[in-house]
């Protein structure tokens, strides 16, 4: 595959269809600028600022853009809030739709058949594979990203974090907790 992709890039460059430096710039963007720390800061802000949380619930695209996270695969955002009764889980059964602007590029498992096939029919089994076992009474809501809305899970704020700064809280927010396959880190983990 390496040779095949190199050949394709050569042909497109020779024909003037692409600028190889643009490819470098795209890669650099997702390596250094756009990743799950963006989403973590959105979640942390929602935890400390109830007005922001309300805005995020009502108009996630605008509330997230307020923190300067915009763009490709984040044009139409929805934030879904976990509650003590309901746990949210996001999947794209049809391809690999994922909120790039807040989480960056999706991990391999998110794009692969085992997760995409099972998340909608056996979410508890899926969560168990991530080491997450929820009470049998917890409702599980699976969001299949079949259109252009992109979903960010806002997990519950961990207990024992009273007085934490936004930065300290953001450090607890894992990528998986914003997909729904995990929970934020416990406070003793930091």
């Amino acid at each position, binding site marked *: 595959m390496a040779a095949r992709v190199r050949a*394709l890039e050569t042909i497109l460059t020779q024909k003037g269809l692409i600028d190889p430096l*643009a490819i470098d710039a795209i890669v650099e*963007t997702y390596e250094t600028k756009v990743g799950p720390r963006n989403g973590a800061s959105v979640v942390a802000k929602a935890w400390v600022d109830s007005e922001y949380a309300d805005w995020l619930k009502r108009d996630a695209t605008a509330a997230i853009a307020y923190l300067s996270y915009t763009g490709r695969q984040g044009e139409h955002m929805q934030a879904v809030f976990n509650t003590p009764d309901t746990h949210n889980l996001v999947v794209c059964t*049809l391809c690999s739709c994922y909120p790039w602007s807040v989480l960056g590029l999706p991990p391999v498992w998110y794009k*692969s058949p*085992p997760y995409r*096939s099972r998340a909608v029919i056996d979410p508890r089994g899926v969560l168990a594979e991530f080491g997450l076992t929820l009470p049998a009474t917890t409702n599980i809501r699976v969001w*299949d990203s079949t*259109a*252009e809305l992109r979903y960010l899970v806002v997990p519950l704020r961990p207990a024992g974090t009273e007085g934490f700064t936004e930065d300290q809280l953001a450090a607890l927010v894992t990528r998986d907790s914003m997909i729904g396959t995990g929970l934020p880190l416990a406070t003793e983990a930091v």
Partner: protein
Amino acid sequence: MNGAQDLGGQMGFGPIAPEKDEPLFHADWEKRALGLTIAAGAMGHWNIDESRHTRESLHPADYYSSTYYEIWIKGLEALLQRHGFISAQELNEGHALDKGVKPKRVLKAENVAGALAKGGPCDRPVGAKPRFKAGDRVKTRNFNPQTHTRLPRYARGKTGRIEAVRDGFVFPDTNAHGKGENPQYVYTVVFTGPEIWGDEADATLTVSIDAWESYLEPA
């Protein structure tokens, strides 16, 4: 189309096996695959729906034995050939042989940051009012088009509840095939686990899809 991509509820793919401390890319060619796909798309000759349809048109055996960046590259080669930019012979020989179609535009490095930050919004005004409102019970249509659709098989012919009325969005079923954007309202529709998977299903499970208006009828 009922292609390999329509995975919801299928079985036999084994464990998810999340990789600990997974790197962003697993090989340098994956970086180029990402960049080439975005940069070639920025020429403006096809839309995201046609891209998706091209990927899901891979033979199922090919789709399931490819990693996602491999699927992207196979799809990109097909798109570039369909739109006259490159030929199969060029791909075989690994260099350009003739000029091919002139692109509408070329994404330059200095414009990458702006293009990525802008994205490609696909909400569109719709002339009519939404047919459904939050709380309405609806049934999804049962259809099996050979063309692109975003109504997964597991959610066809099922009864659910409208949870939210979204904006009007480009209709992928026509847009993927050069037949226009034909925007429609999109609705978040929630189904119970038992409605989709039968009486044995987990009663604590609900699943939602985002459905274009023409996928739905009143229930």
